[in-house]
């Protein structure tokens, strides 16, 4: 299903992967477990013979979610709920729902009540990773999740199955990293939309199959034109939707050379150390991954990370993707803006919403920002 995809097919499938996931599950007889961002250990879910799928919202109209989450709730949280209530609920057999911010705390209750008969489990990884208890907590939470999945599936997993799963996931991330590096150096070889579609789809399909597609693309990819005239940027935020925003980047020749997105570098960074005890290694990963803590931490880490990526990549500007009513971003953004401005780094904030139908204002703002930066 996903082993022979070319770049064009990946972009198309990333727009709406759910029909293919459903078909794959029916054909393979395997179950599908959905997770919202950002901590669900997909290696554990995969080791049970399940397909872990990161749920990334929908751009389709909201119909049922507003009854549960008000207009001023996070656009991504509402959109995720709508996806499972109205559009792709039948794709999923169960859910593992991390709690990463105030909105997602107790969100699993809404899902559990509204999706009767489905497996719904919370996953509570600590956000304050500097605390001495954090490591113990993550390990115990991983063990609790394994017990919960065992009870649901009636299966037990051993270290060998976990190690194999980790290797497949690590290879996926390594391939994405290679493709990202190729794109950074030669932006004509891969558009922003193509690269980020690959990273997005990687989080939603069977990686063993998809890695074959990525390997072939890596081995055959060639420049498709002149790579001059591109402006290197850092893309900051959590997600970047609707995907047509990448089209705008491509249209005005922006080359994303670094990012802090969960559908970008934060995912690729999540490689698990291989060779030791797999549970210890998965625990370790939680602390090695790039900074992502919507709650209970200071904004300075976020700023320092953005600044470092900006300096190291030699980018000309930061584009910060702000999701409407994402409370963690609403908290951080005013301070971040001040710090970035003080540092003299040009930054443009893109206000996005999952149900955005017209991007004309986004286009105008983005284009105007780069006109003022580069001239016309």
């Amino acid at each position, binding site marked *: 299903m996903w082993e022979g995809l070319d770049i064009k097919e990946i972009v198309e499938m990333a727009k709406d992967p759910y029909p293919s996931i459903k078909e794959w599950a029916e054909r393979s007889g395997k179950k599908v477990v959905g997770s919202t961002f950002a901590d669900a250990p997909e290696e554990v879910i995969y080791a049970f013979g399940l397909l872990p799928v990161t749920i990334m919202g929908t751009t389709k109209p909201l119909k049922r979610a507003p009854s549960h989450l008000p207009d001023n709730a996070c656009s991504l949280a509402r959109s995720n709920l709508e996806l499972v209530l109205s559009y792709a609920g039948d794709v999923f057999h169960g859910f593992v729902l991390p709690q990463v911010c105030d909105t997602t705390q107790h969100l699993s209750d809404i899902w559990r009540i509204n999706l009767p008969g489905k497996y719904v489990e919370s996953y509570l990884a600590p956000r304050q990773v500097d605390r001495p208890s954090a490591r113990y907590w993550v390990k115990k939470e991983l063990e609790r999740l394994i017990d919960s999945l065992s009870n649901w599936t009636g299966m037990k997993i051993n270290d060998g199955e976990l190690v194999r799963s980790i290797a497949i996931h690590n290879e996926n991330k390594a391939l994405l990293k290679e493709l990202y590096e190729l794109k950074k150096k030669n932006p004509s070889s891969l558009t922003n939309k193509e690269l980020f579609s690959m990273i997005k789809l990687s989080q939603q399909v069977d990686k063993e199959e998809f890695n074959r597609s990525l390997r072939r693309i890596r081995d055959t990819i060639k420049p498709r034109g002149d790579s001059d005239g591109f402006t290197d940027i850092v893309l900051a935020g959590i997600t970047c939707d609707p995907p047509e925003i990448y089209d705008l980047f491509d249209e005005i020749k922006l080359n994303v050379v670094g990012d802090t997105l969960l559908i970008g570098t934060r995912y690729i960074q999540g490689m698990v150390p291989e060779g030791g005890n797999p549970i210890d290694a998965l625990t370790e990963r939680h602390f090695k991954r790039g900074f992502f803590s919507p709650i209970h931490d200071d904004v300075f880490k976020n700023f320092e990370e953005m600044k470092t990526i900006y300096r190291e990549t030699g980018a000309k500007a930061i584009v910060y993707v702000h999701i409407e009513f994402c409370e963690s971003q609403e908290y951080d953004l005013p301070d971040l803006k001040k710090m970035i401005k003080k540092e003299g780094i040009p930054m443009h904030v893109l206000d996005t919403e999952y149900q955005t139908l017209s991007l*004309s*204002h986004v286009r*105008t703002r983005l284009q*105007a920002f780069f*006109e*003022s930066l580069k001239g*016309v």
Partner: protein
Amino acid sequence: MYFAGIDIGSTMTKVVIYNGGEVTHLIGPTGPEHRRLANRVMEEALNKKGISLDEVEYIVATGYGRINVPFAEKQVTEITCHAKGVWSLIPEARTIIDIGGQDSKAIRINETGKIISFAMNDKCAAGTGRFLEVISEALGIPLNSIGEVSLKAERSTPIGNTCTVFAEQEVISSLASGEKVENLISGIHDAIAARIYALSNKIKIEREIVITGGGAKNIGLIKALEKRFKTTILVPPEPLITGALGAAIIGKEICESSFAKGEIIKRKRRGLSEATFY
């Protein structure tokens, strides 16, 4: 040598033909089929100037319909074009407020005309020309008269709702209670001024403040803005054409830069064709 700027706004289409000194302009309604009509507006402007299309060296399109002008050499945003156009007319300008038909913008520029920052109001009609259109329809007073009418107000009726829909309800309700029309319009102007002030504050307001767009033709709104900003607001001679003027100037600058480098200007295949992707 002539340069043209075409600004397809949500309500009005503006064309400026410029030769580095003399400015000829044409303003017409955009309408729902602007993609089909951009060529005709340009043709009228050329006729007004008495020149042919071939005599125009470079055309820059701007405004929300800028991507649908097939005969333009370049598309530039209205933010950049307004800044350029206003600064060419009023070099002391540091804050530009554009009150358009469907959105408002606040732009801050430095002493060289470079944009420092900008903010746009988009999803909400409050603080835009549309807000005034709705209210003028509700009150049965032509849009171009409400500014003058508001000057007769004894007081401004406070309008609590800045949402266009709820404000309209509030105005109708106040009318039914016997409130005077001029007081209500004055209150509406105050509400818009408050909204514009909040938008402008995001970019830090600096004098001189210049207003452009259709809102600049409403004397009542200008007075309300001056009261809110506590300073004089400057208005260009024709505040609707600053975007198109800026576009034409940008065209001139591109040509001059290319000439200086000995480069050949990349021109579109000429002909006032309709956009084919309507």
